[in-house]
């Protein structure tokens, strides 16, 4: 059986070798991506077996599995092989496409030093350089959604998109009333591909079906599926965007573009155009430590204001959704995956987590992690609780440790990845259904600060935001 694993591994791309044949540079890679349309039906996605993203995904899985099972028993390796084959098959099926897989790519693309460099480069390209819709397709979407040709709905409409994202692409335009706007147009039928991908994901999870956490795992996947599907409704996103916009004032230096509802629909979202660059280009200008810290302060303010005053969390926290504006302000984009903590029950949970974050007290963290992971009514597994506590302590150390914290320390990121790997290796999947989204935010948030190389005492900023929202800053 071990030989079979070796054969399987040998058949996969070597992490150090070229992952994308013929795509030596990022420019070439983008050229390849740009010539492909978005696969919509299962048949076409299946036909992409061996395609670019499948290779990347397989390489990723290869690294993952090899790390996990080096010291495992024969039985564990047999099981790993089965699961791995399933996972590779599913990833192949998903292959090269937008939607759910793009979202995974966006999270992974934020993880330099942790994942193979070429993989990170490929995933990073998914932030802004997704394959474009040609103008004829955009035109049809505009006519279907807004009832007339783009040239007649807008005073000016740029035929070439200036940004692409997981579910759509963005064009510059000018309204007849004169405002410079960004028009986000969604790829047609993307909701269907998300549903179909989640159906394809289920077989990969089946080896866990005899586990006592099977129902919990399915609930988590279902929560993510529902959230991703909600993201296809741009009117819902517009509502979240308006809520967040109301939270910030001019003096905050944080800008949320105004939405134009009269020309927005479920598939088209029109908002003010903001000038600025994304994280990589910003870092390319070699900003000083002081300047980077100032930007990081705005990021902390953003997350804290949204949480304490707005009862919201942007689970899609990645560099593509932030603009570093030339005048020093921070632009916030994309509110499709905003979690709203609307029920008092949910809000109470957030308050309890918050107390643990602020104090860093072991007992509070333990209670929160038990509650967070829905372990209250199960036989206590102390190892599981300890690992969850380690993860919580790692997550919240920048707050409770007090003083300046070096977010750019690779050791800090590697420590978090190590804990996460241990949790995954033990297959501790039990969790509150929304935690995967919360986890996505936690990762995105930290990775952004890491890449920014921020050195910051964030607790006073957080405490200030809590106080403004009427909370005792000790939770």
């Amino acid at each position: 059986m071990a030989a079979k694993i070796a054969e399987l591994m040998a058949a996969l791309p070597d992490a150090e070798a070229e992952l994308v044949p013929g795509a030596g540079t990022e420019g070439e890679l983008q050229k390849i991506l740009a010539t492909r349309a978005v696969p919509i039906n299962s048949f076409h996605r299946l036909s992409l077996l061996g395609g670019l993203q499948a290779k990347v995904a397989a390489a990723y899985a290869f690294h993952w599995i090899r790390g996990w099972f080096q010291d495992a028993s024969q039985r564990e390796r047999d099981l790993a092989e089965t699961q791995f084959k399933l996972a590779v098959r599913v990833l192949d099926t998903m292959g090269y496409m937008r939607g759910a897989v793009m979202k995974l790519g966006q999270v992974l693309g934020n993880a330099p030093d942790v994942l193979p460099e070429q993989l990170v480069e490929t995933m990073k390209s998914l932030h802004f350089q997704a394959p474009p819709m040609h103008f004829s397709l955009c035109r049809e979407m505009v006519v279907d959604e807004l009832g007339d040709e783009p040239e007649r709905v807008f005073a000016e409409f740029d035929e070439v998109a200036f940004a692409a994202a997981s579910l759509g692409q963005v064009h510059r335009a000018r309204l007849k009333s004169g405002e410079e706007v960004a028009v986000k147009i969604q790829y047609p039928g993307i909701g269907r591909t998300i549903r179909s991908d989640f159906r394809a994901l289920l077989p990969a999870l089946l080896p866990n079906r005899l586990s006592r956490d099977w129902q919990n795992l399915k609930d988590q996947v279902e929560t993510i599926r529902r959230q991703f599907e909600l993201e296809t409704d741009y009117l819902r996103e517009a509502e979240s965007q308006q809520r967040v916009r109301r939270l910030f004032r001019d003096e905050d230096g944080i800008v949320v573009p105004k939405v134009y509802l009269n020309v927005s629909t479920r598939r088209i979202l029109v908002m003010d155009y903001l000038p600025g660059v994304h994280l990589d280009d910003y870092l390319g200008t070699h900003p000083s430590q002081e300047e980077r810290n100032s930007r990081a302060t705005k990021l902390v303010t953003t997350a804290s204001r949204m949480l304490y005053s707005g009862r919201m969390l942007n689970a899609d926290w990645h560099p593509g959704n932030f603009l570093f504006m030339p005048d020093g302000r921070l632009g916030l984009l994309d509110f499709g995956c905003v979690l709203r903590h609307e029920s008092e029950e949910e809000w109470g949970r957030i308050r309890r987590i918050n107390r643990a974050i602020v104090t860093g007290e072991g007992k509070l963290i333990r209670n929160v992690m038990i509650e967070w992971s829905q372990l209250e009514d199960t036989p206590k597994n102390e190892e599981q609780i300890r690992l969850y506590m380690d993860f919580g302590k790692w997550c919240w150390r920048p707050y409770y440790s007090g003083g300046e914290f070096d977010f750019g320390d690779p050791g800090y990121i590697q420590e978090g990845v190590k804990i996460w790997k241990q949790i995954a290796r033990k297959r501790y999947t039990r969790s509150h259904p929304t935690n995967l989204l919360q986890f996505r935010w936690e990762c995105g948030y930290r990775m952004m600060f890491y890449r920014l190389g921020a050195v910051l005492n964030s607790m006073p900023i957080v405490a200030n935001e809590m106080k403004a929202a009427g909370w005792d800053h000790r939770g």
Partner: protein
Amino acid sequence: MPRVTAATKEATRARILEAGRESFVRCGFAETTTRDIARQAGIAAGTLFNYFTSKEEIVLQLMSEALLARTEKAFLRRRRDGSSLEEDLFLFVSTGLRQLKPLRRFIAPALETNLSPASQDTSGPGPAIRVGHLEFLAGLLSQHGLAEPPTGMQLQMYWVLYTGVLSFWARDESRKQENTLALLDQSIGMFITWLRMESSDPS
């Protein structure tokens, strides 16, 4: 007996087509009879057969008018300079779908018979639609620098994809038939990729 002039004939024909369109929209294709259409058009039931052999032929004639003259005009109006072959072809087909939209609910039977890639018809509106559409396609390909006229196999491949898109669209229940747009994009991408591979293949 008054003499039936060409103009009268043309007017009657137009009345039948309009009556057919209204009846199909109101009652559906299956529930509409030629008698209903004749009544709606204000002519005797038998007179209808002087103009059309069946209600399927009425649908095909309505499709022909939408797809040939009206689509070409609308396409040329919407087309912009410098667009790629993919964009032009997508625009041509999607413009046709817009013209066909009022007929969407009752074109499925025609697609399964007269317009099917397997159809052996050589005369009537079905073959006219096919020939007219493929001639326009050939013109577009030539404008985009494909030196050789498309082969019979290439045209057949295109027609299979095109009628597949039409059939999907006729039954597409997605919001504003957005899934059809995605399928059309895929189909055109697939066709043009294959076409270019064929052109660059020296054998």
